[in-house]
């Protein structure tokens, strides 16, 4: 049973990652479809919880070929840019959020869109909690659209990335979601 976000935030930060609901590769292979009818307004969706450290930052900088020193040079970050530590990239959120919502809708759904504000820095070694809650759902053209409130909180509950998203889920017994995805008019 997943721990609700409010309960999770009461835990010792070191105990939070154990409650991550990120599927393993094997769980992906056997993942059951979430259907539109399964979703209730107000429901939380699986949270991804992880302590991202400087090794993760190094890997991310190298992968996206971003050489800016605030992301890996601690003395530079704190002395020159007066930051609290080395920071995750603002655009890192742009990769995390779509992948997380893609996972939830897998295998037959579709991550369509999301938007968010950049409100707080993500410093290396913080806990990041990627969370979402269903705010609305509607069926259109035989497809199930689900609106979500989303965000990325740290271990202190500070929201660094408030936003919204819409995913598309199949209806039970309904048609497959078209691929490539064509947004409704």
């Amino acid at each position: 049973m997943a721990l609700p976000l409010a309960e999770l935030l009461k835990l010792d930060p070191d105990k939070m990652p154990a409650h991550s609901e990120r599927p393993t590769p094997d769980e992906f292979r056997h993942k059951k479809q979430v259907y539109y009818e399964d979703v209730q307004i107000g429901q939380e969706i699986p949270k991804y919880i992880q302590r991202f450290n400087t090794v993760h930052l190094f890997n991310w900088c190298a992968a996206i070929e971003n050489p800016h020193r605030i992301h890996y040079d601690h003395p530079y970050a704190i002395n020159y840019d007066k930051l609290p530590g080395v920071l995750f990239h603002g655009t890192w959120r742009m990769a995390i959020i779509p992948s997380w919502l893609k996972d939830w809708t897998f295998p037959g759904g579709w991550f369509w869109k999301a938007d968010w504000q950049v409100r707080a820095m993500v410093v290396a070694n913080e806990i990041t909690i990627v969370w979402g809650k269903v705010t609305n759902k509607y069926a259109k053209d035989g497809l199930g659209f689900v609106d979500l409130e989303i965000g990325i909180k740290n271990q202190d509950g500070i929201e660094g990335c408030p936003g919204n998203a819409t995913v598309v889920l199949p209806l039970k017994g309904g048609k497959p979601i078209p691929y490539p995805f064509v947004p409704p008019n």
Partner: protein
Amino acid sequence: MSRQAESVLTPEIKALIGEKGEMVEGWGVVDEEYLRRFVQALPDWDPTYWDAEFARKTRFKARTVPPVMVTYMAGRRPLEEWSPVEGRPEVERGSLPRIPTKLDRHLHGGDAVEVFQYPKLGDSVCYQRRYADIQERVGGDGKPFLVIIAETTYWNQKNEVLCKVRSTYINR
């Protein structure tokens, strides 16, 4: 006596709305090595990225890549655009015209993404930026500032749209 602050949204800046950068063809193609490094770094454990047999059974019928990987990949630079002295690219490609303003504090306000399809391994990718909107707002201190929406569209070699990113920047 207070005086209304002078508008920072000048006709010259308004004229930039809709202005586009050059169409840029990303270096290389969507390749195994970029995908491997990207999903390790993210991380994203979806076997659809690396298990061809599993991927064939999905509705995509083939391996895929993470939803917006293309937005990072398209920024790769050829060696001749890389400075061996600085260890970073010397050339900025596809840039939008500079906003002619004295506001010198630049903030990244947020992003919005919309995904239509994934590129396939071996696809090439193009992108183009445009100023989707520029508005003026007034801060709590009574001073006006600019909110700039820059939209980037990514296409594959068939001219099919893969995804769009709208980034919000604040100049104050």
